[in-house]
């Protein structure tokens, strides 16, 4: 700070004079933010923290960085809610249906966890006394399952995935239209070299915090993934998922082409479809065209191995679509004037051809009616995204921070008496032993993931249950504190729960009775 803030002076009674309004000085650089949280009035450059280390300039927004995150129901004005509580005076009883949920984000940890979790918070939901055990877990046993919507070839199954030269994961299976990667995990965090562990940890933290991460797949592509963002494969941003394989595309659009075309070839790296031979074409009484296609014929109108994966048409290595047509047989229906559409499974690539007198396809202007169907293929392709799911095993010592008899916690979760959330976001609890949770990082608050030098990942986790059930499973009852008190103690910031997240207190069996 270079000047005394105008209008700010100590009063004789020692109380600070609060400015009615505090306008940013005109000389302040445009990319700085002025923090008015306290009289120091820091002007903070992008990426830096103020004098208190609590507030920082994150992408031009003044952001509280190190505090407990209270998840509030969307549209809630916490200040107004609190003011309403205060005018009535707090009698020490449990609050009623607070629109606030204390998340583990910023709660810190009590590892090793024989000590009670940092926050064990009592609140009320629809008249029922509830308790939420809030902590930040330190997870070595954790990983990310990444789904990348693309038909482009990313690399062979089981191939090593590298980040900054270190092995951080591997290529998993392909599901319909999407490639899965398994990233991180204890083997990379602590099973390899120190550098591998550090790089894997950094990669995992970034991925969890929805930042872009560049990955190299051995024998395959370089891909940039970020949660809820389109993948970038070898420098090209993926825009659309394919509508289906070549055969499925034929099946969907055959009636719309009928009458406007004599032949349609849908180019695909898996199954290339040929309308006239396909069951869908037969059903529409389409005449044979005598087309001879490269590849291995499967059932009628479906061809395998027409093309290899690549960055050409529809995720194939084809750049000239006619290269997959080996010839035309007049004896089987080929004729001059025959009209053919060739199209990729995303509708992004297409060509219109008419056979000349020598039965050679010649490019021609595509009729509007056909073009509209091609456009409809594109319209039916959903946007390509990366989705990042965090998987963590909380079955270890972390449970001791919740109860002195940990297996009861595990059982209570399985019998739905305890709802597990990560930063207030709903999780899927895997069947079987232990507490293995899976959560979409896009539904968690921003910057939920941290790390410790072990290396291991730090992430928020909360266990919510009825107060009676908490007592029954051996909870740390003497450490239960009222939500009101947590709020009154300060040191928190609010984050709005992601739209569509169920309210954490509402998911319990019998909750809200």
């Amino acid at each position, binding site marked *: *700070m*270079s*000047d*005394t*803030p105008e209008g*700010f*002076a*100590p*009063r004789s*009674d*020692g*109380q*600070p*004079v*609060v*400015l009615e309004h*505090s306008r940013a000085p005109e000389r302040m650089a445009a990319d*700085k933010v002025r923090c*008015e*949280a*306290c*009289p*120091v*009035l*820091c*002007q*903070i*450059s992008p990426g*830096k*923290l*103020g*004098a*208190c*280390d609590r507030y920082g300039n994150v992408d031009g927004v003044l952001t509280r960085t190190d505090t407990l995150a209270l998840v509030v129901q969307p549209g809630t004005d916490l200040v107004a809610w609190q003011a309403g509580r205060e005018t009535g005076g707090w009698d020490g009883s449990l609050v009623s249906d607070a629109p606030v949920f204390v998340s583990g984000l910023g709660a810190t940890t009590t*590892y*090793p966890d024989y000590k009670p979790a940092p926050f064990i918070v009592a609140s009320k939901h629809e008249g029922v006394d509830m308790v939420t055990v809030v902590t930040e877990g330190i997870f070595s046993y954790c990983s990310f399952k990444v789904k990348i919507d693309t038909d482009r070839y990313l690399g062979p199954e089981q191939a090593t995935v590298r980040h900054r030269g270190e092995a951080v994961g591997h290529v998993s299976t392909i599901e319909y239209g999407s490639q899965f990667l398994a990233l991180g995990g204890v083997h990379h965090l602590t099973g390899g070299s120190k550098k591998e562990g550090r790089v894997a940890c950094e990669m995992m933290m970034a991925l969890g915090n929805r930042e872009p991460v560049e990955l190299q797949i051995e024998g395959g592509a370089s891909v940039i993934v970020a949660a809820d963002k389109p993948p970038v494969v070898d420098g090209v941003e993926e825009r659309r998922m394919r509508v289906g394989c070549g055969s499925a595309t034929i099946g969907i659009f055959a009636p719309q082409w009928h009458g406007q075309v004599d032949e349609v070839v849908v180019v695909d790296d898996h199954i290339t479809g040929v309308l006239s031979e396909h069951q869908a074409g037969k059903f529409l009484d389409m005449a044979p065209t005598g087309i001879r296609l490269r590849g291995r014929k499967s059932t009628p109108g479906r061809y395998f191995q027409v093309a290899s994966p690549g960055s050409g048409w529809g995720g194939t290595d084809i750049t000239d679509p006619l290269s997959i047509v080996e010839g035309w047989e007049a004896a089987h229906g080929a004729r001059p004037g025959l009209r053919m559409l060739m199209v990729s499974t995303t509708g992004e690539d297409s060509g219109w051809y008419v056979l000349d007198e020598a039965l050679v396809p010649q490019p021609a202007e595509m009729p509007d009616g056909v073009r509209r169907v091609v456009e409809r293929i594109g319209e039916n392709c959903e946007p390509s995204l990366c989705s990042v799911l965090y998987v963590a095993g909380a079955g270890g010592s972390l449970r001791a921070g919740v109860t002195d008899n940990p297996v009861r916690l595990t059982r209570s979760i399985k019998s739905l008496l305890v709802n597990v959330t990560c930063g207030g976001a709903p999780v899927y609890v895997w069947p079987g032993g232990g507490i293995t949770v899976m959560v979409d990082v896009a539904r968690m608050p921003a910057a939920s993931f941290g790390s*410790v*030098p072990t290396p291991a990942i730090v992430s928020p986790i909360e266990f919510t249950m009825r107060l009676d059930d908490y007592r029954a499973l051996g909870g740390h009852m003497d*450490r239960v*504190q009222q939500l009101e008190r947590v709020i*009154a*103690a*300060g*040191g928190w910031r609010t984050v709005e729960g992601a739209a569509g997240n169920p309210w954490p207190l509402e998911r319990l069996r019998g909750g809200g009775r």
Partner: protein
Amino acid sequence: MSGAVRAQLADGRWHFQHGPIDCILFAEGESGAAAECVERAWLRFRGLLAELVGELPLLRLDLSSPEGAAAAPVGPVACRMVAACRAHATGGRFLTAMAAVAGSVAEELIGCFAEPRIRRAYVNDGGDISLHLAPDASFEVGLFTDPAHGLAGLPLDGSFRVDAASPVRGIATSGWRGRSFSLGIADAVTVLATSASRADAAATVVANAVDVDDPRIVRRPAGAVRDDSDLGERLITCAVPRLPEALVAQALESGRRVALREIAAGRIVAALLCLQGRAVACGANALLKETCP
């Protein structure tokens, strides 16, 4: 703008916070006395940051410059900061009064507990601690040689006792790993002095002196790390790799010389210098002998 906030911790201690100031307060004594003193400290605390901000430009002057030498602040905390730091800013050595801000705040608040009904009290402002002790009372002070040990929940690296007969009423720690910036590479330098403001200023100076030249030590201009740092473009320590034994010994020795000078001048009572698992104690060795890891 939010004002000062306070909260009572589960163990009865209080946490006062306003902007960059975080204090933990503890007091015990005759029935009701501690609570009374905490209220007094709270009243004092609420206006304290505003007072300091009002004189901030003055407090950020280099005390070795002509303007700094002439600086005459008004507020009691600001006066204490300047007094504690001026002694070190001789011979053109750069130092601003901000070097003693935390200790001076702690010392101001401990004044609210200075009465016979209070047996023991302390105010810990971010690691800079001011003590109040009745004639027969003492404090056992725990010590980590590296802040990371504390965060990792490891056992204390050592402890020492401060009893009422000792002149020590202030304990301060400085190092590059802490919240304040350091020009040196010490993990932690803990200084015992007769007051927290003196301890704070001296800890800064001694920690700055624990240093060697090594290209692997990452230093960046203070202004590049934080806006408006009172250190301007001076290079602060941002990362220290594991250093060879000889360099560790050399850095500690250079800090030890400064610590001994401070002890000889009567400005501090004792100091413990920690760097990469090694520690050097200076002065009042009896007091510190248990701390050596």
